[in-house]
């Protein structure tokens, strides 16, 4: 039971999502599904990062009436990973958008979404 903390659940879920996402990215044949798999991979990553910021029994790092303004470092969870995740999410949407645009144009050139059809450069 001692391992059954909120943090560990988050971490394990996150790791599993990472692995599932990677597996999908490496095995799916449809380009769009590969992109979907990468968003799952991203979600897993973000979940891991947020889970790491969590400390049991502490509150979100926002100063309000309930927290007061003293000894905050003993009341707050870690704000740094949260800031990182924010960045990571925004990067994620940027990359996904770009990938989808590529997918769109690739479909236009070949009328196909199969990754195996885009091998004109090789060796």
């Amino acid at each position, binding site marked *: 039971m001692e391992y059954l903390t909120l943090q560990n659940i988050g971490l394990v879920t996150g790791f599993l999502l*990472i692995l599932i996402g*990677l597996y999908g*990215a*490496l*095995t799916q044949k449809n*380009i769009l599904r*590969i992109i979907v798999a*990468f968003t799952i*991979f*991203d979600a897993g*990553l973000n979940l*891991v*990062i947020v889970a*790491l910021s969590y400390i049991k029994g502490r509150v979100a790092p926002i100063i309000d009436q309930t927290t007061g303004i003293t000894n905050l470092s003993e009341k707050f969870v870690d704000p*740094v*990973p949260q800031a*990182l995740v924010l*960045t*990571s999410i925004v*990067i994620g949407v*940027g*990359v996904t958008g*770009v*990938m989808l645009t*590529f*997918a769109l*144009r*690739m479909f236009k*050139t*070949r009328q196909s979404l199969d*990754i*195996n059809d*885009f*091998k*004109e*450069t*090789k*060796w």
Partner: protein
Amino acid sequence: MVSPVHIVSIGLITAFLLGLGKKSQQSILVLVLLIATAAMTMISGSWLIGIMTGSVQPTDVFTAGFKPPFAINLRMTMDEAVLTTMVNLFGFLTVIYLFDVLKNAGKHLLSIIVVFLIGLNVIVMTRDLFNLFVFLEITSIATAGLMIMIQDSKSISAGFKFLIASSVISGILLIGIIFAYSYIGNLNIDFMSNLSLIKGGSVAVFLVLSAIILESKQFPANGWALDMYESAHPAIGSALSAVSAPAVLFVIYKLMPIVPESWHSLIGLFGLITFTFSNFLATRQGNIRRMLGYSSIAQGGLMLTVVSMSTFFGNSFWFIILGFLLTNFFAKAGLFWLNGMVNSDDQNKWGVLRKRPVLFFLFGAFVVAIAGLPPFPTFFAKWEMIMQLANGNGWGWIVLILLGSIFEISFLFKWFGRVFHAEEEKINDIRTPWFKQVPVLLFGAALLATSYYFVEYLNFDVLFVMLPLLIVTVFFAIDFLPAFVKNLLLIASLTIYGYLIYPEIDGNVMQLVFMGVFLVGGILTLIPGFTQKGTRAGFYPFAAMTIFGLIMLVNPADNLTFFMGWEQMALGSYILILRGKKAERPAQQYMLFSAGGAYLMLAAFGLLLHFAGDTFFGHLNGMLPGGGVVFVLFALAFMLKAAAIGLHIWLPGAYSEAEDDATPLVSGVLINSGVLGLFWIATAFGPQQLFGYDIYQIMGWVGAITAIGGNMLAIYEEDMKRLIAYSSVGAMGYIIFALSMNSKLGLLIALYYMVLHFIYKTMLFMSAAGVIYRTKTRNMYEMGGLIKSMPWSFIVVLIGIITLAGMPPLAGFAGKWMFYNAVVMKGWYLQGTMVFFSGIVAFLYLYKLIASVFLGQLKDNHRKLKEAPFVYLLPQFIFVIAIMVLSVFPQVLLEPLATIIPDRIPGEALHWDGKLAMTSFGYWNAFSVMSVVIVMFAVIFGWLVYHSRKAQKVKQFNIVFAAERPFRPETTHVSYNMFAGYKKALGWLMTPLATRFWTGVSDWSMAIADKMRSWYTGNGQTYAMHLLLYAFVLYLLISGGKIL
């Protein structure tokens, strides 16, 4: 001084403001971009200059005003200044280069370019891991944007593959960063030094490191990168190679302090594997951009090795890495840009570059620079790297580097040769507007300037290195002058040079002899060049390079100087050979074998450093215990140049296909560099053993077989030049045999033969050149009866072959006589007999040379031939006079030569008693032999003349054909297939073996490369899997299978 952070702010403001532009204002927008990149370059450049001159201190920029690790800081030291200047300058030039594209491309592309540059700048400067991640992502997306500058299906799918790969990589990186944070509690690299000491912390280090290594496109997890290089616009390929790769490598350099010491060499090894194998696979590439991609990746691998081993290389680190970095930066960018101008990935279409001499010259310079030949920085960097590795016993590493280097040379020079010879009619037009030329010219100039600083930094000898280099440079500069002016200038400069250095080497007979051979040989072989018309562009710089390269071998201050001269000579002669009309393949072979020899030598120098410290190998003075391997490597290297049997297959093609009047230089003169080396190792090392075998014994056999084999090969030749070329192989066999007898007399014979061979071979080739100049053919069966029209040439050939055959009374006989003495003293009867037999074989083909060319019937189309031009005959007769003098007074040469041989060499020396040469077996007096022969000759000749005064002169058509006319008249010529009978009997012995072996080697390596290449399936998903697999294997090797 403007804060480095404003590189970013200027760039970003520009990027954002470009969004306001309208379609009609595109030209203004491009101008804005140009100004912005110029400003960015100025900021980083001013830091570079400031830090270099010491007027500013390296600095940390604290963003948001908090000290690290509380906020992100950017660092600006010398390293960052160099790299950001490179990035921004490159960006500036790219904007110029792409002016026509950008003018029509729309504002978004402009923004993407500037963001790409910002990304790289911050990657270089930031000290914060997560910040690094963010800007790597920026660079990735910007790169994807640059990929679709050409929107064809190739580049789009390559861009998508890149996005997949970079998603996987950034995922690994992000996991690593967050693990690192959770262990150490901050994100700043400078505060992570003990991360790997924490339990589990090394996993974090590993993840971060492996992500960046993957980002640096290491073999074999780099299919995505290759596809990008192949399909991207050349300017973008150039950016990937010249700035992206160095920036990522710099990140690895930044990370090295937190990487455990024990991983360093493994990462270095992975880098080296990339270097070797990428170059290997590049040998099978026809597509230029992909080939350049392979080459860029290979260079990246080599730099990864240097970066990861920076502590190992110690003080040399900066020298090595700058050598590789700057060369790759200037040369690779230049080549990609040239690709954009030629606008074709087909090597055959690159011939168009020859229409632009300056660009063509720069193309050559870029290729040579990447191949690591002097005087470019890579050459020195590679040398230093090998020496350092040798110091640390890294033999396997050296093997990998040298293998990779030879593959590199193979594909680079195949390309160069193709461009040199691509046919004119295939040439499409080349577009070279000024804005495309400016960047290439600038980078070319920068490359040359860098080379200058490297040479300057190394403090070479003024007279023996710097002056020759200066003269060679001058000949590049004056290449537009008419040929005869340059010929005169080169001869004059050689003469003056000889006058200048004579006092320096006076008293050192060995140097005098070799300097004499190289200088006099150089001058005399140049004289026929006066018949050339036009400018003969590109000949004289390389002739100068060859001759001065040879000169640098004679009195080198250290091993590096020797090696530099050696490579310079190889490069110069390669170009001289390549200039021949059908010389593309032979020149390529020549280059490969030269490079092979050079790299064996490099390995030998490394070993020598390990065994004997930093001494010049020719000054070892005696025994080098356990130096057998060093000796063998040196011997192989020099025997390659001297074309010992098995290593000779480059020689006939190279010598015969070179321009006719250049052949004497690349053969008769240049081959002596091999003898010089062999003589040096023979005297400096003393007898050596390898695996219990006496090396001299083996070399003696090699020499004997070479002598007989070379001569056997010569007898079947119908081609005049190839015949003489093969006879060189035979002569070298003599010399190798004589050297390996390791006795005073043996060495004396070797030296004597060297001089003699130089004289008669140069003479014969010149005479052949004269004949070919008139008859326009090299096939001997198309000649005949030339004695009437070319009597002087006939005399020269006659004297040449009498000398060659070692018949009395000419100088060759002295060699033969000493030879028998030495063989008997040594007791090598069997080998001696073989060499003796090879002399008989020599008669066969020499007879052919004289009989089928000068005797017999004159061909109809040769009736009006004149004697060879005077400038051809002049040097030949100087040589004839030399032979005559030596024949009568051999002691003029033999006595000084004997002083060169050190006393510690065993065996009896030659004694002189007046004109009488003596050994314990007998004596010989050249003067009286000559007198006797002349008297006999006069008597017989007189008798003949007396008796044949009534003879009837028979004209050709007095002979009546027996009613039939042969289908192919040339088959009736005496020398057509002259020795078919012998060939039937003995041919199987000689011809196919060596050729078959080397063809086999080449076929096999091609097949293997093709097999390996199929690893890059072209499927983006497979590439992503490669990434994971690479990380997996790296992890297993680092951790040894355990969890870190």
